[in-house]
């Protein structure tokens, strides 16, 4: 094993089976890597060695006893800091939750550990998952391991970077408007945003409840599929989790793409797309055609309204969800003479700029006199965007787009203008509003070596299709386009 080498999930399993390494040694190796690189990259906000080694010892004991191992046995994973982990600090990248240790685990974490995965620690993110660059974390930005003066994307930048930097084999992120797919694209790793309702949100600290989802980052599409089979499925603790059966995603990867119709929305290739990104996506589409897909030109006429609808709905839900941070039950308190003054000071100082901006906007669009003009209008436009997808999927099997109109940008380059940052979410917020699954898979690099991500959308609960297409694309050399 060379230092800092990439491990895939099947490679971990093969090494454990052959007794080339123990789970404990593997965990130790990953902590050594983290120790070496975290000061520079700022990926991990908290580490959980006690829990990780206890889990590793359980796996090693099972191996020694000759027991059958679960699918993710010994796989070191990282978990975004908005996902609850019992006893391990969970801050959501915010000062208002500094020192908070959840009294329970998120279902996705429980399921990972039941499948033998080892949680190494918690990854940095934009505060309460609000941002597209990771620069909104109260604990400083993550640096993109591919180009360290660039952002890793956001909000799940720490999870994407952890995989890209080989500091974890796989990671959990969350996606509300693109927060899994866009950092996956910026860091050059496969990243899946499952259908809404596919993965339980129990223990996911809420940003916008009708949009929030949990999904995986991994080195390969196969690894992402293996993680998905573990975390997906109905959970009685999340009433919005669906009881749609969970297929063996990894088992369905080796099918031909022959005859699949891929929709290319003309509306996604207008102004604002970086010419190098456009070229790499065109090359990616050509590769899919070579693999047997049939290219179909489609219209998604309401695309241009998606950003506006998204920022109304997401901020409205956020303003309500974030009302619970009041200095009473968790996190630090800033004293005040009255209860209200205590709330105001605690929240005024505990939240960062982007979170406060979104709370103000969300409160405004929900306030008396504006509700119909903004919130209700936004929800009606959401209906139209979902309809665009539904109608498109009557004609095609999948929709192919860029993940982001731009590659990773430099730290600090875009912080002055929040609206400009929001507008770059265009290709991801549409699928968020419609509730459909989308995967970002590496599709070549720009001339300066920055990864480009190709996004494949499938119909609701069509994770198996987007995974199998992304797998074929990856195996055919999509990353090297």
């Amino acid at each position, binding site marked *: 094993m060379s230092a800092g080498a990439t491990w895939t999930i099947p490679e971990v399993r093969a090494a454990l089976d052959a007794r080339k390494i123990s789970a404990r040694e593997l965990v130790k190796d990953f902590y050594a890597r983290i120790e070496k690189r975290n000061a520079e990259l700022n990926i991990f906000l908290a580490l959980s060695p006690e829990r990780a080694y206890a889990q590793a010892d359980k796996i090693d004991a099972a191996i020694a006893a000759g027991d059958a191992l679960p699918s993710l046995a010994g796989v070191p994973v990282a978990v975004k800091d908005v996902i609850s982990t019992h006893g391990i600090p969970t801050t959501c990248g915010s000062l208002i939750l500094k020192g908070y240790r959840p009294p329970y685990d998120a279902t996705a974490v429980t399921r990972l550990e039941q499948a033998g995965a080892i949680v190494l620690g918690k990854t940095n993110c934009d505060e309460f998952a609000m941002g597209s660059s990771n620069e909104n974390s109260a604990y400083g930005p993550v640096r993109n391991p591919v180009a360290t003066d660039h952002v890793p994307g956001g909000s799940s930048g720490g999870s994407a970077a952890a995989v890209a930097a080989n500091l974890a084999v796989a990671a959990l992120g969350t996606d509300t408007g693109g927060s899994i797919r866009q950092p996956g694209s910026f860091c050059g790793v496969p990243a899946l945003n499952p259908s809404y309702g596919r993965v339980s949100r129990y223990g996911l600290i809420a940003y916008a409840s009708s949009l929030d989802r949990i999904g995986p980052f991994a080195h390969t599409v196969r690894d992402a599929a293996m993680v998905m089979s573990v975390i997906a499925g109905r959970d009685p603790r999340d*009433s919005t989790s*669906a009881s749609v059966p969970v297929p063996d995603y990894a088992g369905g990867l080796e099918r031909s793409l022959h005859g699949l119709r891929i929709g290319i929305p003309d509306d996604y290739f207008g102004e604002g797309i970086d010419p190098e990104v456009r070229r790499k996506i065109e090359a990616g589409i050509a590769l899919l055609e070579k693999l047997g897909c049939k290219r179909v030109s489609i219209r998604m006429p309401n695309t241009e309204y998606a950003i506006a609808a998204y920022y109304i709905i997401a901020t409205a839900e956020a303003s309500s969800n974030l009302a619970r941070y009041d200095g009473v039950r968790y996190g630090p*308190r800033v004293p005040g003479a009255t209860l209200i003054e205590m709330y105001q000071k605690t929240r005024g100082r505990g939240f960062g700029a982007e979170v406060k901006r979104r709370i103000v906007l969300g409160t405004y669009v929900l306030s008396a006199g504006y509700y119909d003009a903004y919130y209700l209008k936004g929800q009606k436009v959401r209906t139209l965007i979902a309809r665009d997808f539904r109608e498109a999927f009557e004609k095609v099997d999948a929709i192919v787009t860029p993940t982001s109109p731009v590659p990773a940008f430099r730290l600090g380059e875009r912080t002055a203008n929040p609206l400009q940052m929001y507008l770059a979410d265009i290709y991801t917020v549409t699928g968020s509003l419609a509730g459909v699954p989308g995967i970002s898979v590496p599709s070549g690099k720009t001339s300066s070596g920055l990864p480009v991500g190709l996004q494949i959308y499938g119909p609701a609960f069509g994770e198996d299709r987007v995974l199998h297409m992304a797998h074929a694309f990856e195996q055919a050399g999509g990353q090297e386009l």
Partner: protein
Amino acid sequence: MKISKEDVLKVAALANLELSAEEVDTYRAHLDDILTYIDKLNEIDTSGVEPLTQVVAASAGDSALREDVVVRADIITEVLQGAPDPEAPYFRVPRVIEK
């Protein structure tokens, strides 16, 4: 101008958010940009369109209500450990009722 300084202060009060004078100015300008952009939505006719509040019910059809069953969760001690001013089994807050 879509939003005034007074609007920002009013909304901040509704959200129990203390903002500095500087924050009020910056957020007002940002929100003005964003709300102007959002006006785009007035270009489309949504009469007769139902609002979409939740996608899962339509696609999976099972956000059904369940039986209300009491499950014991002995986590009071752990919960209070994370509180800024606990007095078991309570959270203490500044006085709200005058003597």
